[in-house]
């Protein structure tokens, strides 16, 4: 049994694994071994990996915790550690911050300023600051504010600390989804759909995001193609819970049977996800899908993961739908309270 592995062994094993809970477990174990043995540099290294892995497999809280620790160490001994990697991680942290309703708007702004200050002090372009301001404003439902940050960041120079072009393009597209300008959404999506811009997460995210805009414009044939391709890219990966939600939103209207497949294949990931926002969206989209499916196939028994905490009868799809809807509603309320508007609950429709 591998319970007594040393730091190097654990890290080696972790490096050999793809992103996911198992890798994260190894890394956490490595960090613990380093902590227990007072190996500070190693503890820092393990946490760098935790931040990255956790960010991209649905554990933003773990990422935040590990990053907080790192930042403290860094400030104590800035000459010991590499600031570029750390500051790059800071962007991931900012990107997920709004998902936690316990974090107040003020706190977010404070963090944004801290981030901006640090970027400035290292001589990086201010583009990242304004870009993240743009993103956070979108998350808070402050679209006017988002609009002005949008105008601002685009005029600033990119540098090596900027998010990649594909990611930026996707976020800009998201802005037009929020403002409800479907035509503009498709225009923004074009370079991504044409394959001119891509990265590790794009077009994965984009292909699900444009489904509803296309649906509203009546272009379902196109949407179907993107749905298939998009799902193939994200299937089985716990980092794409929001995308699964978007897929279900579309499929509930066009092909509920397929929507149910998506639901059954991805519920495990949503359930286990530490990003409460993604989980809320997923649960929120599950409810209407189940109701729609109940009309079509009332006898259907949904296959729930073994550890799913639902006490009722999974054969009663409507009751199950209520359960999901209620969960999503309660979560959305928390965000609305924090944001001081109805933005998040309006997303649930």
């Amino acid at each position: 049994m591998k319970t007594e592995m040393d730091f190097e062994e654990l890290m080696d094993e972790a490096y050999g694994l793809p992103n996911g809970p198992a890798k994260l477990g190894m890394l956490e174990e490595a960090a613990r071994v380093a902590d227990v043995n007072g190996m500070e540099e190693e503890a820092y290294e393990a946490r760098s990996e935790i931040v990255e892995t956790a960010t991209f497999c649905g554990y933003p809280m773990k990422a935040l915790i590990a990053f907080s620790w790192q930042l403290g160490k860094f400030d104590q001994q800035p000459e010991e550690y590499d600031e570029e990697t750390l500051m790059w991680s800071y962007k991931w942290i900012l990107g997920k911050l709004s998902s936690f309703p316990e974090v107040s708007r003020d706190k977010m702004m404070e963090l944004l300023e801290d981030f901006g200050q640090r970027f400035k002090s290292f001589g990086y372009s201010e583009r990242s600051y304004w870009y993240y301001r743009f993103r956070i404003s979108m998350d808070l439902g402050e679209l006017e504010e988002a609009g002005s940050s949008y105008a601002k960041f685009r005029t600033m120079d990119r540098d090596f600390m900027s998010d990649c072009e594909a990611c930026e393009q996707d976020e800009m597209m998201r802005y037009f989804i929020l403002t409800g300008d479907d035509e503009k959404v498709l225009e923004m999506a074009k370079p991504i759909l044409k394959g001119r811009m891509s990265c590790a997460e794009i077009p994965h995210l984009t292909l699900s995001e444009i489904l509803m805009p296309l649906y509203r414009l009546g272009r379902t044939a196109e949407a179907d193609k993107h749905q298939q391709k998009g799902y193939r890219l994200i299937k089985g990966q716990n980092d794409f819970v929001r995308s699964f939600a978007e897929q279900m939103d579309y499929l509930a209207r066009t092909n509920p049977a397929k929507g149910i497949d998506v639901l059954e294949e991805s519920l495990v990931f949503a359930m286990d996800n530490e990003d409460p926002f993604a989980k809320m969206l997923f649960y929120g989209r599950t409810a209407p899908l189940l109701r729609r499916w109940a009309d079509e196939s009332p006898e259907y028994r949904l296959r729930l993961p073994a550890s799913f905490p639902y006490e009722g009868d999974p054969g009663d799809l409507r009751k199950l739908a209520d359960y999901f809807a209620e969960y999503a509603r309660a979560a959305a309320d928390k965000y609305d309270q924090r944001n001081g508007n109805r933005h998040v609950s309006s997303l649930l429709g």
Partner: protein
Amino acid sequence: MTASNEYRFQVNLSGMIQILSNHLYSSPKVFLRELMQNATDAITARTEAEPGYQGEVRVELTGTGEQLTMMVEDNGIGLTEADIHEFLAMIGQSSKRGQQALLDGETSFIGRFGIGLLSCFMVSHEIVMLTQSAKGGPSMEWRGKPDGTYTIRQLDTQLSPGTKVYLRCTPDAAHYFEADYVKEALFYYGALLPYPVTLHHDGVQHVVNNETPIWLMDPALARSRRAEVLAFGERLLGEKFQDFIPLTTASGRTGGIAFVLPHAVNLNAKRSHRVYLKRMLISEKAENILPEWAFFVKCLIWTDELQPTASREHFYENEKLEEVRSELGDALRKGLANMAESQTERLQKLIRLHALSMKALAVQDQAFYAMIHRWLPFESTRGHRELGELIDEGETLYFTSSVDEYRQIHHVASAQSMLVINGGYIYDSELMMTLPMTVHNLHTERLEPDQVSMSFTDVPPAERNQYYDALRLADSALQRFRCRAEVKGFKPSDLPVLFTLSQESSTLRALEKASEESTELFSSLLGSLSSGISSAGYSTLYLNVNNPIIQRVLTSPDDQMTPIAIEMLYVNALMMGHYAMNRQELEVLNQGIVRFIDWGLRGNTDRKGDA
């Protein structure tokens, strides 16, 4: 716009050649492939005009040192003078259409010929080509230099139809002209070619490729020719394989052999399959032709339906490729399914070697999971076992979701003879979660460490009453660690306490630890986050009533001694569980040790004083 305003880019041909030869291809060695490709195309073109025509390719090495020369000859269709001009024009056009457009798929034979020839400038400062078109006309000579200059002349003698290309090697490229190298490279690129390729050197003739194996056209036939297929695989892929699965697609235009790797591979290992396009090697590291999960095989694949990229070393990621990939994946899966049905031993062997790969696939594909689940290995409180054996125990299959949780509870769980599977390794907990959906009448349950208490024996109320004072002392001592004490009976009895941590309390511990180290801003951020974690974030220290020391602690509570003993048991449990301790806990540990030493010594001196 008037015609006089129209200009043409001035193309620097030598620059173009440089770019193409140095940046398009991954290595100079591809010149041989390009020459073989030209020869193959020329023979194909002639076969189309004269059905049944028998083509061949001769390669000859002559001279030594600076005179070392390679000649590649085919008896294909040959080029007329007009053809030569056309291919030169195609080279010039590449500036206008971009190298990509020029090289994409179905460009004319001549066009591809020209570009392919350019790669020879990576190994030779001069290319001489003698050619005679099968359509008649005079024999022609073309001499080209890397600066873009060339000469064309008619030969006085009439050659037989076909093309000969002469290359004199540059000093840098001499090793590409060594006979042994050339022989291997010719086999490497041309092993599947449907006509003989021969190498002539020092008056000796080697046949490079044997007769085309019949299973090439129909991979299903490979099954009955095991030894032959394995030997072919070893020669071509350089590994001794023991097993393979034939692959075909519905259209029959893509086929192959998936050789099962004889050793375990890392999940991140580069997938390198060898692919032949129209029987010419196109890539030895095609990564995208099989699904991600197929990393337990190394494949030999031949296809005539995919579109190569400009360098002809990979395929375009398009719908066709997607289709082929999924069909090849299905074929592989089917091969495994057949094994599961009729050759379980073979499958077992394969799974033992490539368990990770099989698990990855099982996670994605429930039908496949259902088929092979019995042979997947797991770590459990009954040891390393195959899932089938564990299922046959007929008990609830409990599983943990991390190695950590497993470690916390496996002593106790096995002492209770609970069947717990370590779900901490990659894919394992996912597989456990989905098992009941895949295999009917099975029950799996995620076990959280604090649930082990289910199998603890409760202490009867009357007895519990007896421990009331001690427990109260314990609880108040542990309060500041957000932990509570509970009395239970459990095995093994030499285990005094068991510390369990729920998901929430584990997160809280991590939050606090990070908060101690972080900046003020982040500490307060973490503070607001911890407010969102429910009060279920209490950990539990179970005191084992079956343990003699605990018995003494419980039955003779002492306002001074009991809290310290409990605290020490608590930090000891943390240490045993490899938990990082926060400042408070470290302090308890330090003070506790000192105090116990003090007590011990004092007891000693007191006794001495009595004597």
